[in-house]
């Protein structure tokens, strides 16, 4: 196809390849918006702390198929409820949906196009971010999950996106989750990889009235990876969307979670990021209280070491007429080195008067009183520091409902906080 006029080589390279056949109108619309656009720079307010120069300098190309040994990634609760994607392509032999209950559709997009007319229809009313449009223009495959009315799915579903890059590649994982009214589901979405690559996942969620989705999102990309993710969730009346994003990998990651709450709905956007070396993790969230009496929770925690940098921008909008809104947002950050850096900002836009909105941001070191308490029980200063750092993160992890995921993440956090030697698997 195409004679896109874009300033950055990145976009030219990525869009010069063939366009997959399905979803032509979605792709054309995205390409249309991309035309003439370029990578954001630090002059753009939303990107002022996150420099994409390093990304622009790498010649990413469309990802070839690859095979990966997935045995290390299997989770016992979900051996029969998993879909695996390698380099953005579905991996049928690594996937297994034998335990998915009847009535639930849990399929690769490539085999379920007729079921996916809803793809690209969760709209937040603003122009999609460039990376979302890139995904729409070029995604190869992804997953669709459809849960019929009132069905409560007992087993969690596992979405595994693996990337193996021998040379720099770009992958565009795509997910659509539709829960009909009264349905319930637990979803674990994981991103792992090796090598230098760009991953731009887009996850669309639509929840019918009273539907409940619990969504664990684990980002363990390779240390050389760039991860720029979009999440859009539309929550119907009295529905509940609870997500927790746990970021450990990637040289650079940016998350754009967006949630729209209808009347009486409940939304959770929790996050934990563990950063070291030169890592950058940026979250720009948007919690939209569109209708009355919705409740939202956000707890975003970062542990930042080395020369790493964390950015949190938490936008909360209470629409006119969204009376009875209850919105809570907390950003808590632990700096472990002199050179670590955190920029955190709440952004409240409140157009209704009968609302409860609370927000708080804290950036600091470990509390000397807590350290002394542990030392007074015989832990040396290093052990006390490591235990408190672990505790800061474990506080978020202990709420992860799937036991094997919780255990794996705890072990990861223990290793990263040097708490493993303490032998306190909480």
């Amino acid at each position, binding site marked *: 196809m195409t004679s896109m006029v874009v300033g950055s080589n990145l976009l030219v390279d990525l869009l010069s390849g063939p366009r997959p056949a399905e979803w032509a109108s979605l792709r054309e619309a995205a390409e249309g918006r991309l035309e003439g656009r370029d990578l954001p720079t630090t002059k753009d307010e939303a990107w002022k702390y996150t420099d994409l120069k390093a990304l622009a300098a790498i010649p990413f190309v469309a990802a070839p198929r690859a095979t990966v040994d997935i045995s290390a990634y299997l989770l016992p609760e979900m051996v029969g409820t998993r879909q695996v994607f390698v380099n953005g392509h579905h991996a049928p032999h690594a996937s297994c949906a034998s335990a998915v209950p009847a009535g639930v559709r849990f399929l690769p997009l490539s085999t379920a196009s007729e079921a996916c007319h809803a793809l690209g229809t969760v709209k937040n009313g603003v122009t999609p971010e460039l990376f979302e449009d890139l995904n729409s223009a070029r995604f190869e495959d992804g997953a669709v999950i459809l849960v019929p009315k009132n069905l409560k799915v007992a087993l969690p579903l596992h979405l595994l996106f693996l990337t193996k890059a021998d040379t720099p590649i770009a992958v565009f994982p795509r997910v659509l989750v539709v829960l009909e009214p009264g349905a319930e589901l637990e979803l674990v979405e994981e991103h792992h990889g090796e090598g230098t690559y760009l991953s731009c996942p887009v996850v669309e969620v639509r929840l019918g009235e009273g539907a409940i989705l619990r969504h664990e999102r684990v980002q363990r990309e390779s240390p050389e990876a760039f991860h720029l993710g979009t999440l859009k969730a539309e929550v119907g009346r009295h529905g509940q969307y609870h997500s927790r994003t746990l970021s450990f990998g990637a040289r650079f990651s940016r998350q754009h979670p967006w949630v729209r709450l209808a009347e009486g709905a409940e939304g959770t956007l929790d996050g934990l990021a563990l950063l070291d070396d030169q890592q950058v993790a940026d979250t720009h969230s948007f919690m939209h209280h569109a209708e009355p009496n919705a409740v939202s929770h956000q707890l975003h925690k970062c542990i930042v070491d080395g020369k790493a940098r964390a950015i949190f921008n938490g936008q909360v909008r209470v629409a006119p007429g969204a009376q009875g809104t209850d919105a809570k947002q907390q950003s808590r950050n632990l700096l472990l080195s002199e050179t670590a850096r955190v920029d955190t900002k709440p952004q409240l836009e409140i157009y209704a008067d009968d609302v409860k909105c609370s927000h708080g941001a804290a950036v600091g070191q470990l*509390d*000397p*009183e*807590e350290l*002394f*308490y*542990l*030392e*007074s*029980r*015989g*832990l*040396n*200063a290093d*052990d*006390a520091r490591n*235990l*408190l750092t*672990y*505790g*800061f*993160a*474990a*506080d978020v*992890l*202990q709420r992860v409902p799937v036991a094997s995921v919780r255990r794996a993440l705890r072990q990861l956090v223990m290793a990263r906080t040097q708490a493993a030697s*303490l*032998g*306190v*698997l*909480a």
Partner: protein
Amino acid sequence: MLSIKNLTASINGTPVLKGIDLDIKAGEIHAIMGPNGSGKSTLGKVLAGHPAYEVTGGEVLFEGRDLFSLAADERARAGLFMGFQHPIEVPGVSNSSFLRLAYNKKAEAEGRDELDPLEFDDFIHEKIKLVAMREEFLDRSLNEGFSGGEKKRNEILQMAVLEPKLAILDELDSGLDIDALRVLGDAVNRLQRADRALLIITHFPRILETIQPHHVHVLSGGRILKSAGKELALELEERGYDWVLEASAAGGAR
């Protein structure tokens, strides 16, 4: 066991302890009473090694060793324990894991065998009976969301696990209901032995009816103004502190 000579200490440049002398022998129970702000908690924290307090003079020997040559954690492993007036909450660290860690650090220092999780399970179940703590508190994060009284109970559980030679209990009784006070007082008594000692900081004589002290000291303005037997606690309850302060000013209270 503990010998304090002319101890002075300050916080943020403000002198708080202004010359404390105190001798505690093995097998003894001492109580310290005194007005708010007189320096009772400060004395406990200085002895336990809180880094914010500066020792400006004097000497403290613990079992013959210079206490101030030891860091806080070394003092703990050497057998010193302070029950906090306001215990700290530590989210994300389970109570039982923490207790096992503390136990094993001390065992390691004493050359005893460490306990694995199963062995520790048996061990801790005996200990929670001693303080009548419900099992669910073991799985919760350390002190997180505990009520004031539950935190105090957890302090005594830690004491029971660590079996210190010298325990300084700072206002164990504040925030405890009557039953909890009796249970924890009994537990402390059961932990007391001829080779151990206790320093009880309190405002109320009631706890001293259960944990009966051999000596009661009045601390005021950073000094010990009067020391006597356990009857002093009741006398203070009746008469307040003014008479001690006045007698001290007149040079006669001791």
